[in-house]
């Protein structure tokens, strides 16, 4: 099947088998190896990307279902060599160790902050319940997400990094959520 997908701001047209998982399409065909596969059952969340501005597990979406949609991966977050506030917060709060869960964790954190611009600890923990980390015990991840949210409040930094309803639209996917 022929599909046309916008990934991290670039349009791609490809022929894929219908059974091709979106994550395999990203990794194998587009070389977007920043997004990884950690399980078979959609429990670990390591493969989380955004589809039209909402987090999804790319192991549980077929590539054909992304036809005519926009995908944002961890590789599409940094702009002009500048880290996204969530990436920066993960670094500054030591929210990663081996780093394998990190792309999915960051992508889900973005989604969480879009829904909850000032999340308390419990909201963060519940909002990340679809992402497993085996290294950190989550404490610094929770801290990083709250820290990032703080830096992304309206007026707190560059407009493109703030949370607004509009930034959920696909054309802004990645930059602002």
């Amino acid at each position, binding site marked *: 099947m022929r599909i046309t997908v916008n990934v991290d701001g670039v349009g791609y047209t490809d022929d894929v088998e219908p059974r091709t*998982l979106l994550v395999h399409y990203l990794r194998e065909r587009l070389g977007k190896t920043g997004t990884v596969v950690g399980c078979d*059952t959609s429990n670990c969340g390591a493969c989380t990307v955004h589809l039209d501005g909402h987090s999804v*597990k790319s192991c549980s979406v*077929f590539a054909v*279902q992304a036809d005519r949609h926009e995908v944002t991966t961890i590789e599409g977050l940094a702009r002009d060599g500048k880290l996204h506030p969530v990436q920066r917060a993960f670094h500054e709060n030591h929210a990663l160790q081996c780093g394998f869960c990190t792309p999915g964790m960051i992508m889900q954190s973005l*989604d969480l902050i879009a829904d909850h611009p000032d999340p308390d600890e419990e909201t963060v923990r519940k909002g990340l319940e*679809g992402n497993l980390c085996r290294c950190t015990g989550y404490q610094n991840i929770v801290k990083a997400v709250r820290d990032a949210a703080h830096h992304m409040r309206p007026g707190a930094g560059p407009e493109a990094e703030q949370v607004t309803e509009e930034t959920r639209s696909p054309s802004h996917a990645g930059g602002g959520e």
Partner: protein
Amino acid sequence: MIPAEFEYVAPTSVEEAVRALTEAGEDAKVLAGGQSLIPVLRMRLAAPNVVVDLSNLSELTGVRDDGDSLLIGAMTTHYEVQRDHLVHDHARLLALATDEVADPQVRHRGTFGGALAHADPAGDLPAPALAMDATMIIVGPGGRREVPAAEFFVDYFTTVLEPNDVLVDIRVPKLTGWSAHYEKFNRVAQAWSIVAVAAAVRVSDGTIAEARVALTNMGPTPVRAHGVEEALVGQPATAESINAAAARAAEGTNPTTDGNADAEFRSHLARVLTGRAITAAVGA
């Protein structure tokens, strides 16, 4: 893990979907949100020849006000249900149970209709649908028909849906002004319910005027706790009467035994959690 090969069809109308399913026969699977089906395909626990993807059927998404009921499109995602103000105002129990489904990513893709059609006894949406007397609106080769939730769920992962049926809408009678609670018991946040209780009550002048209670994972299908409902109606909304009613929660259930809970423990949980669900609803 990698799914086996299949032919992919993405119809643009319900009729086309039914036709595609009919042509494919027993070997077809309907793909709604895919959040259960795709893992199953990856594990090769199922290997259909044809997958019929409903995601182009935009008429199956959204929540409409239909007088005494809400009409919820089968392809409405959990995320949309959670945020819908009609659901919030008139089907609070459904909104609360949907909050407990899987995790945020899955709720972005998974659909209300898909969860009902999947009919996992541990799934969180069949019991509220049953409690709220929802009606499934189904389109098949013979046309459109309506099946009440009480008749829809047949067995483990089995409903009245024929292989070439498409669940298109769910009619949910409004419970405006009722209070509700979904009490879920599981071992880790993303796990399925060991037991859960869906409860909605209408309290009038301190008396429980009406009550709806249904149980998740207390048998092959969701179970309506009729005994509890009967015991509640007309009683004062007090701890004593609630607990007395909750003691009947396991009546008529057929709980399974597995690694998380045996039948005895499940029955016990059903009673405890029913008391808690009703108490929380009354206090809500």
